[in-house]
């Protein structure tokens, strides 16, 4: 099983950041803002964020801000969207530089995407998904601006996406999927609404995601994948049912998904690595209190000291 190759993963992330011209990098360019959040948060969890030039990142980040709408895009030149707006705000929270934002404008962009029924659209084109409910609620909470939306309706919409197996889908009636479950449980946690969840029922569905190889899948009958080490694990933690899985077997699975030579973590052992799975693997290990890692908050997906700072430092 071995250990977590901290140094290799740090080098991998720094290299990925620089390698902008490969085909793989170009294909991901449109979500560079997400990639930056994944990479930077991983570096912080690995206690290595000091190597980053904060100002350079912030400068690039702000060049992705559309001052007309108030939202952020995935990279320079593309259209704004909730997904990237959340990542941008999370990055600034990580650096404790939320002061560079026109918080009012950004909040208005997010709040403006709430629909009559409480749901959220991802952008002006109107796609509705509980992922966007999470993005909006998490983003606004970090900005201390949750009061700009109708929280009650937002919660009501999320609860309407609850299924009979205790899980949640993308829209009402949508099948339960671990990614959607994370978004809904996260949003309900942030708004203090976990009493809407049948924790025993959902906890059992979630703990049944653990496969014989120790990894977690996203739905019954599917293969284990490292990214579910986050979606499923954080959900289990938020509802206090994480002791229902075998943490050491999951740790073993994640560590086996490392590329010990070149750094990075993949979805499954011996597959190609990427920043997405590197982040989720390290975040999963952090949730399980792997030695040497900073602990991460399961709802905000940011280090706990960052979240505590947002809520409890001197005003």
């Amino acid at each position, binding site marked *: 099983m071995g250990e977590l190759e901290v140094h290799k993963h740090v080098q991998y992330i720094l290299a990925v950041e620089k390698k902008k011209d490969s*085909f793989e990098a170009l294909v991901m360019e449109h979500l560079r803002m997400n990639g930056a959040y994944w990479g930077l948060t991983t570096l912080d969890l690995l206690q290595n964020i000091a190597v980053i030039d904060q100002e350079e990142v912030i400068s690039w980040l702000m060049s992705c801000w559309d001052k007309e709408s108030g939202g952020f895009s*995935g990279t320079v030149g593309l259209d704004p969207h909730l997904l990237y707006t959340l990542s941008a705000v999370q990055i600034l929270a990580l650096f404790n530089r939320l002061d560079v934002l026109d918080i009012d404008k950004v909040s208005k962009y997010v709040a403006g995407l709430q629909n009559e029924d409480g749901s959220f659209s991802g952008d002006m084109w109107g796609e509705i*998904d509980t992922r966007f409910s999470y993005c909006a609620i998490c983003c606004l909470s970090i900005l201390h601006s949750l009061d700009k939306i109708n929280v009650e309706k937002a919660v009501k919409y999320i609860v309407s996406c609850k299924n009979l197996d205790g899980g949640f889908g993308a829209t009402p009636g949508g099948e339960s999927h671990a990614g959607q479950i994370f978004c809904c449980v996260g949003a309900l946690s942030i708004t203090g609404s976990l009493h809407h969840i049948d924790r025993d029922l959902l906890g059992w569905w979630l703990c049944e995601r653990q496969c014989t190889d120790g990894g977690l899948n996203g739905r019954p009958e599917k293969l284990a994948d490292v990214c579910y080490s986050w979606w499923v694990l954080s959900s289990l933690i938020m509802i*206090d049912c994480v002791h229902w899985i075998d943490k050491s077997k999951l740790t073993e699975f994640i560590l086996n998904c490392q590329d010990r030579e070149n750094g990075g973590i993949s979805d499954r052992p011996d597959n190609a690595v990427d920043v997405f799975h590197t982040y989720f693997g390290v975040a999963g290990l952090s949730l399980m209190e792997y030695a040497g890692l900073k602990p991460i908050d399961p709802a905000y997906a940011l280090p706990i000291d960052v979240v505590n700072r947002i809520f409890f430092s001197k005003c």
Partner: protein
Amino acid sequence: MHGRPRKSPGVKDAAAAAAKASNLRDLQAQLIHNHHHRVYTKEAISASSKLLEINPEILTVWNYRKHAFLQNLKEATDSEGIKSLVDDELRAVEMALRANPKSYGAWFHRKWVLSQGLAAVDFDREFRLLDHLLKADSRNFHGWNYRSELLSRLLNKKAPGFVDRESILTKEYDLVSQALFTDPSDQSGWFYHLWLLDQTVTPNEVLLISSWPSHGSDWVLSVNGDATICKPSKPICTGYYFMNTGKLPIVLYFNQTVKGVNSSSVTVNSIFVKNENLVWRPLPPSKSQEAACWVTYLQIPDVLSDSKAYVVEVKLSHSKDILSSIGSEFNHPSHFRFTLTLNSESLENAGGESVDELLVWNDGRSSALESNDLVSFDQLNLCEDHASAFSQWQLATISNEIKLFKELSEENCIFVNLTLARLLLAQEVMVSHRTLTERLNHLREVLKLYDDLLKLDPRHAGYYEDERSLVLMNQVTCDEKSISSHRSHSSNYTSSKVHLLGCLQLKSLSLTRIGYVERLLWVQTLDLSHNKLRSIAGIEALQLLTCLNLRNNQICSITSLEPLKPLSYLRVLDISFNKIGLHPVDTTRYLFSSPLTYSMIKDEKYLEECRQANINVADNWEAIFLFRDLHLKQLDVKGNAVADEKFRALLKKVLPTLIWLDGERL
């Protein structure tokens, strides 16, 4: 990002990769240019199609196409032209789905185009597309999930003359049994069975199953403000209950979660207080105002002390107000009455001592009870008749399922054993008038199933231990004899003259959580030491609790102690030798009422006071928001990683009523 094998690029690959990259870069740059300059020519749109075939994930490309579509729509002259525009978009989506069948952007674009309502939707084409994609990735559970959705909709209809719920469910049991016995390894059928079971075991009727004070009990109160004590009128005993807030709790416990308990739906008749002024609160406190346990407090006046027995009557009549979570109304009127005699004897004359003295928990086994201090069993309010809340059909169905599953249980399949355990537990509640021996045998059978499961499926040990703890609690509290063997004399707890009633000792039972608290509403002193408790959820119902021992358990966080907050009588707490401070990731962080979850307003003034007292608020907010709401006189925290000097200083600041900390007088 998923499912690509790991390989190092060779030289030949490098050249091809560079060409691919260059092509992609050009297409992306072109798209951004056309998008910003609103270029919607045929060539431009065609270039975007090429890009989408390579990378359908870029949302902006789909946005561009929507803009282009709307613009070209304006210039379209006839319905043929419009239809061809629509077809172009649908074809682009199909091409994109070939590259990635799960592309959010592609699917939404298709929905968006069709929702423009410009051309008749070709449903054949749509279903063919779906078939094609689903063939590539089919799963059974989707079907069962859909089935339970349909059924749920059907069953919730309350139309008269509507199809019989019970016969529908019976057919479903047959159907799922076929599936399960054919292929017991297919998970999806089991989740459906669990849902069916849930439909079957939910009690049809709302019942009041427990209360404190219990019906027919008589109490003498020696009223002295916060030194008020309460004793049963008979038998005459030296023991007492502390009523250290000067208020008497009235606790109601229902057989399921209900809302709507208030002074209209529940009437309390007494000379002490006007019914309309009583406020009923759910326990645990909840934003949704729903709970199985509800409490109100009778303020005991100082004045009336004429040694007359005053009757207090609590009535719950038919009420549309009180509703269960599935909408059942409360249709079983019940009432109970108890009497209160007030005198103004001081605490010492009444034979008591306040809890300012240090209370020492005895580590040994409990010694035999003195019959003088035995509160009569009647006053243990075990008035359960849960069985009346269930129909014949429910009982028969569960019996059938048990028979079926017992036949299968030879095969040692995890799901079979787990389902059988759940079935047996469900049956336990539904059957009335069993002898104690029958009940204990039944519970022993369930315990054995969980022990087997712990061996069969060690991955889920945590779950089985939790379930097992509940069965154990059931066993230990199921009747007078069981409880008696765990009750103890309060002299086990202190060498001074404090004589407490309602002492229960549940040590060393390997409990990971507690349950069946409706049977323990009379408990004042509870020793849960030397267990494996990680949660104390449920304890909030024990409103008389004054002394609690949680030493040597697995409590990992301060936030998991939230259930202590509604215990207004709690004065002595021992949480020494737990795991508080060992775990940086707090699993009850979001279940705890605090400014983090917008469940309380941040008292900035108080937090600033704490900062002035050198307390790091950002790192210790959990302790501040928990202990601030407790009124402890005695606290033990040693043996926890968190319990350093700084923490002790914090406790002293946040608990001004504290007299004893870790055995030392402050």
